[in-house]
C-alpha cells in the first residue's frame, strides 16, 4: 500500500490531501484565502498560505490517523498558477520531502483536476471540460497526453464571471448565477466560438457596459451566464463529435454551476453521451487531487529532485507524460 501526501497552493486555496493506492482519500484539508476587497492578491494569498501551512499539514495527518513517517512520497502543485502561491506550497513540500526522506513529485494542477474527477466519477475515457477561475479547456487523452482540443484565447470562463461579479459589487461566483435567476430578458452580447476555442474578454466588457447603461443586474447576469455556458457547451459538443467519445467529464470550480451542468446534460442526452460531474468537494482546488495524481506518478517513478523542483506558473496540461494510462 502506497500513501501520498499532496499540497495544493496555486491560487486562493492552501490544501493538504492524503490518499492511498486503493483510491481512498484519508484527508482533504483546505485553508482558503478570502480577499477583503477585489480579486486574489498573489502576495497576500501566499502570506496566508505560509501562515496556515503548518496547521493544515498537522490537521491532515490527524484526520488521516497516520504518522508523517507513514507516507511514501510528497506531491505538490508545480503549476500553472500564481508564482508566489506556488512557491509557498513548493517550499512546504520540499521541506517535508527532505525532513521525512521521501521522494518529491511535481504535479500539474490541471491534470490533477482531471484525475480526481476520473477517480471519483468512474467515467472511463472521457472528453474533459475543465473550467475554473484560472483555466478553461477541452481535453482528451490521446497517446499518453491530455491533448488540448480547445481552450480560451484570453481569460478563463470563471475569471470572466468572477470579474463581472466583483465589478458589479455582488462578488465572485456563484453570485452572477444567483442574480441571473432574477433576470428575464437576454441581451445580445458577443458569442465568440472559434472552432473549439472560446474567448470571453469581449463579453465581459459588453456586460459591464450593459450594466452601466442601466440594464437591470439580473438581466445582465442572465445574459452573461447563458452566453458563457452556451459557448462552453458548444465547444464540448464539437470535441465529443470529433473524438467520437461518448463520455464527458466536467471538472474544475465551475463544475459547481447547476445551470452549466443542466446545459451539458441536455447536450449529452441529445447526443447519447453520458455526463459525469466531479462532486462539489473536489470541484474547487484541493490537496486530495494533488495527492492522488502524485500517487499515479509514483507508480511510474516520476520523481523530481529538490534542486530541480522549480515551480512553473505557465505549465500546460499537455506537457505531462500520462505514464499511468493503460
Amino acid at each position, binding site marked *: 500500500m502506497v500513501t501520498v501526501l499532496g499540497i495544493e497552493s496555486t491560487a486562493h486555496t492552501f490544501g493538504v490531501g492524503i490518499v492511498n493506492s486503493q483510491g481512498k482519500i484519508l484527508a482533504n484539508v483546505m485553508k482558503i484565502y478570502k480577499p477583503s476587497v477585489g480579486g486574489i492578491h498573489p502576495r497576500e494569498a501566499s502570506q496566508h498560505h505560509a501562515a496556515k501551512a503548518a496547521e493544515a499539514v498537522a490537521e491532515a495527518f490527524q484526520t488521516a490517523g497516520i504518522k508523517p513517517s507513514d507516507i511514501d512520497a510528497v506531491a505538490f502543485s508545480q503549476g500553472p498558477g500564481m508564482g508566489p502561491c506556488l512557491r509557498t506550497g513548493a517550499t512546504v513540500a520540499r521541506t517535508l520531502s527532505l525532513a521525512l526522506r521521501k521522494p518529491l513529485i511535481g504535479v500539474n494542477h490541471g491534470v490533477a483536476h482531471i484525475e480526481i474527477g476520473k477517480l471519483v466519477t468512474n467515467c472511463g475515457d472521457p472528453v474533459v471540460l475543465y473550467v475554473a477561475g484560472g483555466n478553461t479547456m477541452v481535453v482528451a487523452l*490521446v497517446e499518453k497526453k491530455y491533448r488540448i482540443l480547445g481552450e480560451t484565447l484570453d481569460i478563463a470562463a470563471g475569471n470572466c464571471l468572477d470579474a463581472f461579479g466583483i465589478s458589479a459589487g455582488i462578488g465572485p461566483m456563484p453570485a452572477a448565477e444567483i442574480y441571473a435567476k432574477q433576470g428575464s430578458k437576454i441581451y*445580445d452580447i458577443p458569442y465568440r466560438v472559434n472552432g473549439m476555442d472560446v474567448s470571453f474578454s469581449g463579453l465581459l466588457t459588453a456586460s459591464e457596459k450593459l450594466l452601466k447603461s442601466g440594464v437591470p443586474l439580473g438581466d445582465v447576469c442572465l445574459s452573461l451566464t*447563458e452566453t458563457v455556458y452556451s459557448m462552453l457547451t*458548444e465547444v464540448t459538443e464539437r470535441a465529443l463529435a470529433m473524438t467520437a467519445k461518448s463520455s464527458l467529464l466536467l471538472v474544475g470550480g465551475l463544475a459547481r454551476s447547476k445551470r452549466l451542468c443542466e446545459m451539458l446534460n441536455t447536450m449529452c442526452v441529445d447526443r447519447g453521451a453520458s455526463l459525469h460531474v466531479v462532486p462539489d468537494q473536489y470541484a474547487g482546488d484541493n490537496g486530495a487531487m494533488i495527492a492522488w495524481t502524485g500517487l499515479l506518478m509514483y507508480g511510474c517513478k516520476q520523481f523530481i529532485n529538490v534542486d530541480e523542483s522549480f515551480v512553473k506558473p505557465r505549465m500546460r496540461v499537455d506537457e505531462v507524460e500520462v505514464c499511468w494510462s493503460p
Partner: protein
Amino acid sequence: MESLNFVEKKVIRVGAEAVIKEAFWKNHRIIVKHRVPKRYREESIDLRVRKSRTIHEAKMLIHLSENGIPVPLVYFIDPVECVIYMQYIEGLELRNHPGAVERAKRLGNIVGEMHGLDVCHGDLTLANIIADENQGVWVVDFGLSGFNADLEEKAIDVHLLERSAASTFPTQTKKFFENFLKSYSETTGRDAAKEVLEKVKEIRSRGRYVAR
C-alpha cells in the same frame, strides 16, 4: 419555402452543429445544410448564433465563387430555419480517393488563391475536400471560415491539412505535402509561402490540433 418543392432524400453527414442532406429540386440534385436548433441553448441566443453563421457561410461561399474558387454554388438561403441550399459536388472525399497525392497539386493552387484573398477555411481536412471526375478539386464546409485571415489562421489551414493527410495515408504524406506546397507557393509567391511555413512550424511545436 414549400413552393420551391425540395424533395429531401437522405442524410449524408451529421456534424456537431449541422445536418447535411442530399435533396432534389426540379430533378436537380442539391445539398441542404441545416444548422439545427440546440435545446441546451436559450432560444434567442440559439437563433442568433445559427442565423449569423448561416449568413456568414453563405456570404463566404458566394465571395469565393465570384473569385473563381471551386466551392459549391449557393442556390437559396433560408435565414429563418438556418438552411443553405447549395450545389451538389459529384466526386469522392479526398481521404477516400486513390489519386489524392496527384490532386494535391491542384489543391495547392486553390488554397493558395483562397489565402491570397485573405480567406481561411478553418477546418481544412481531407474530409472537406472533394475530388471530381475531371481532375478537379472542390473545397466544402466553410462553417469555420474567416475573412481577413491573418498569418496564423492561414498556417492553421496548412497545418490541419498536413495532420489530416498524415492520419489518412501515413506513407504518402510526404509526397502529398510536397505536391501541395509546390503549387501553393507558385500561387502565393515564395516569400508568402515561406512565412506561412515558418508559422506552421511554430504551431506544430505547440502540440495542439490533434486527433482529427
